Structures are given as structure tokens and as C-alpha cells.
């Protein structure tokens, strides 16, 4: 790895840390400008880092603004998967990611979603690291090898 690659890798690690820290602590995805201010770097450098982190399947960016859409397991935009733990709340991208948010916090948490077929609502609860039983089943539409063909639809 040459000096330039080492520098961009360090920037990308720093950006990843700042984004996940903001999401975990506030539930809100930071903008490029906010990350730039925190990292004391020009916004253009953060834009480049966002693109590299998307290429590396760490972030997914909005198609036009190139701001964050996903930093898996978090969604920057509202979804049908609402997660809460303590006084904090987040949006998950899917059932896997929503439960992943609770796993990432390491805390007790609740997940609210509903059956896409009939609209019946569910609240799943994780307590002491265990997911409490519920009469539901998960369905994955897209085979694993094709998830990143279009990660917004899986």
C-alpha cells in the first residue's frame, strides 16, 4: 500500500467511525458537511470517502444527492422497520438489519414492523440477548449471491 492509499484508508476508517458513532448516538445519519466538520476535512474529501465506502459495500448512497441512504444495518430514511433501545430509536433496512441494530447496541430493544401481506403489526422484543418468541416468519426474496445487484431491493 503506497502513501496515498494509506491516507485514504485512514480517512475512510475515520469517516466510518464518525458515521456509525452519529447513528448509534443520535439515530440520525450525518450529512457529508457534518462529517467534514467533525473530521476537519474539506467536504470534497468526505464525498470521495463516501463513494469508496459505497464501492466497498459499507455505505449505500442516495442516487442523486450522494448523501447516505444506508450504513448497514441503519437506514438514513424512514422504513417499515422501527427499532428502539432505551430512549433511542433507529430505522432498519430490513428485518435482518433491524434485528442487527439491536445486536449492535448490545442492549434490550424492541422492533416494530408489520406483515406486508395483511398489515398486522408486530413488536419483537430482545431481552438479555434473547429474541422473545413470536408467531412470525421471515422471507428473503433475492438469493444471497445477488443481494448487491440491487441492495435497495432484497
Amino acid at each position: 500500500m503506497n502513501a496515498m492509499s494509506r491516507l485514504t484508508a485512514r480517512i475512510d476508517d475515520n469517516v466510518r467511525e464518525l458515521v456509525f458513532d452519529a447513528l448509534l448516538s443520535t439515530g440520525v445519519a450525518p450529512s457529508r458537511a457534518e462529517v467534514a466538520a467533525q473530521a476537519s476535512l474539506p467536504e470534497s474529501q468526505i464525498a470521495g470517502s463516501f463513494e469508496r465506502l459505497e464501492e466497498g459495500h459499507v455505505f449505500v448512497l442516495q442516487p442523486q444527492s450522494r448523501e447516505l441512504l444506508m450504513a448497514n444495518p441503519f437506514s438514513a430514511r424512514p422504513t417499515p422497520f422501527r427499532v428502539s433501545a432505551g430512549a433511542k430509536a433507529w430505522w432498519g433496512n430490513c428485518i435482518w438489519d433491524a434485528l442487527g441494530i439491536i445486536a449492535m447496541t448490545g442492549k434490550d430493544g424492541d422492533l416494530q414492523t408489520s406483515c406486508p401481506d395483511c398489515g398486522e403489526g408486530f413488536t419483537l422484543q430482545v431481552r438479555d440477548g434473547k429474541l422473545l418468541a413470536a408467531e412470525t416468519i421471515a422471507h428473503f426474496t433475492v438469493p444471497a449471491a445477488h443481494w448487491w445487484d440491487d441492495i435497495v431491493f432484497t
Partner: protein
Amino acid sequence: MLLFRSEEHASNWSAVWNQPFGSLLSLEQVWGLAQAWYGEDRRRPEWRRKTLDEAREIFAGLGLTSSFWKL
């Protein structure tokens, strides 16, 4: 990756929206995936995405061995 009341509801939804019927997972399997995939702190500088072999090992450990889960 959605949560349904039952297999019948997942099947109805797939038919109505003209989507392929994919793979059904129990809640325990999804929670296992969530813990294995996201249990690490992604803020740490040394964090890296799972390798293909690591992903295959996680799927196999949860009994996800059909062609749907092949990477």
C-alpha cells in the same frame, strides 16, 4: 427481507406483487444472522466486512444450506 404472519402470507404477498418465492427463515435464524453479521462494533478501525468464507460459515451454522444461500 420482510416479516410475515405465516408462510401463507409470504406466499400471498409474493404472488400479488409478482415476486419470486425465496427462502423462509425462522425468527431464531434471523436473530442468529443479525448477531453474527452486526454484533461487532463497526466504529473500530480494524473492523472489516465479512469474507465470503466467513459468510458461508455463518449461513451453514444457521442451517442455511440451500442453493438460495450459495455465495
